[in-house]
């Protein structure tokens, strides 16, 4: 690859590596920061290898899609029981236990009760900041379809949240 490619890759890394790291962090708590660095690096290796495929108008969601596959493959490689095994050792710089204990349990319960698909699209929007266009790139669907999917997920989340707060 030429210097133009290297320049573009360097820009992608500088602009989006934090978002990729945050994305991975939200979905998998590594033991240490170096574990997270490894996952980010693995994602960027794929980005570098497939630089020509990165769409200019949707770089971040495309990179998050790569990160998603990195996570899937890592989980697939270790075990196919991941849905049942979610507790991980915390990194040493995580927020205190107290902060988590006092967290919003209604939101947490409503989130946990959502389907995987609804939770994914909801959190991609709320946490990773993907708008409907970016969601369309991420899921490889149209913007309109992404908007519908997000809207439905938000509606279901609101319903579950209301139910959780009634209890």
């Amino acid at each position: 690859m030429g210097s133009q490619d290297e320049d573009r890759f360097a820009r992608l890394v500088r602009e989006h590596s934090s978002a990729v790291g945050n994305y991975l962090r939200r979905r998998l708590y590594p033991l240490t920061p170096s574990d997270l660095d490894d996952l980010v690096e693995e994602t960027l290796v794929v980005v570098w290898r497939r630089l020509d495929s990165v769409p200019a108008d949707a770089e971040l969601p495309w990179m998050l899609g790569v990160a998603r596959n990195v996570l899937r493959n890592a989980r697939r490689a270790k075990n196919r029981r991941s849905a049942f095994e979610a507790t991980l050792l915390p990194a040493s710089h995580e927020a205190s236990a107290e902060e988590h204990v006092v967290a919003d349990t209604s939101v947490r319960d409503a989130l946990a009760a959502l389907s995987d698909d609804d939770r994914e699209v909801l959190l991609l929007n709320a946490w990773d900041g993907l708008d409907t266009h970016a969601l369309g790139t991420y899921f490889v669907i149209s913007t309109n379809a992404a908007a519908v999917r997000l809207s439905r997920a938000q509606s279901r989340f609101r319903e579950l949240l209301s139910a959780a707060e009634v209890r």
Partner: protein
Amino acid sequence: MSDFEDRLAALDPAARQPYEHRDLDSLISKITTQPDRTKNRLWRNIELKVASILIAGAMVTAGGVAMFQGAGTGLPILAIQSTSGAHSLKRASLPTMGAMQIYEEFNFTAGPALTATTPTNSSYELQIPSSGSNEAVRVAKIFGVSGSPVNTSADRVDWTVTGPSGSSLDYANSWVPEWSYAASPATMSTDFLPSDLPSQSTLANDVQSYLAKLGYGYTVSAPSFGTTTSTSNTTTPGSTSTADVTYSVAVDGMSTDQYVSFSVDANNNVVNASGPAFSVGSSLVYPLRSLAAGVAALNVEQQSRYPATSPQASPPTGTDLNAGGTNTSTTPSGPPIVDVTLNADSLSLETYQLTDGSLWLLPVYDYTGVETKLDGSTSSGTWYELAVDPSYVRVTNSTTSGGTHGVINY
């Protein structure tokens, strides 16, 4: 931003500590100046770390499965590296908690309902296909996909066979190898209602038919049926519904941590399928530790996770986080202690990789219990622990450092 979006944002695990790579220049240089670098090394590194964190915490140290004489029985001793007490990871109680948990430290007590354990149980070595590319081609043909295998990862780990229609078979030749079939969207029937889908018994027969063709010899149990409807106007116009099932792979009637999944469309065509590629090889019968000893091991692992000398990144907030439980750690701001009484147990098989690269299914105890949270509410969960008698297991403590604070996972 709406109220619920604010509240969601407040739960963002990354918000408190946004990710920043420590040296982007070096990272960029490392990736761009090593064009011949395959992903294999890094990938396996990640894989091992993830495995060590997420699964039942057994990775075998370099140096291997020491073929010592175990307690005079001639059984080989399994040299297993404990990864900071990761044996006892909790499985979320589904579906109410999903995969999202507040991290807590547990104080386990064996309840009276724990049943008597069997004295021994078989462990099984897995036979893995010797050639990933050949196996990819073989499995692809079973699903009607003909083509040449392409090494998509450039490291002879991941293989893909794509047929003329666009249907494909992926074969991941790492850990326990996994085959994964995906039909081309163009071949899928659309605009059917879930009620048009094949019955569960039809789907079950489909699975049995394919398993027979695959010929691995394992059985499946505990099916979980469902339906999925997805809408897309880019790949396949209209909506697509599938009937889905996931089975646990069973060996000698015991469930394992391996799974087989199938999805079919309204015309009973397989849309997606995946599963492990192994057959069961030799087996060894190991003595098991008692259920109570397993519970004790859970507690030991909990305590070792939070040594009193653990560094504290955040100062204590002054609130006593212990609520009635016995805090065995002197760490001042460690996680809250939650009492758990374990009242049910079962035996299953978990996959462990040994240092010679061989993969084994080893028996683990699955404990189910009720935890009483700080606010007095209760929820159920399951925890598991290697059941093999410790005298046949050589455990080396990991040098990996764990933290001291809680996280929310999902």
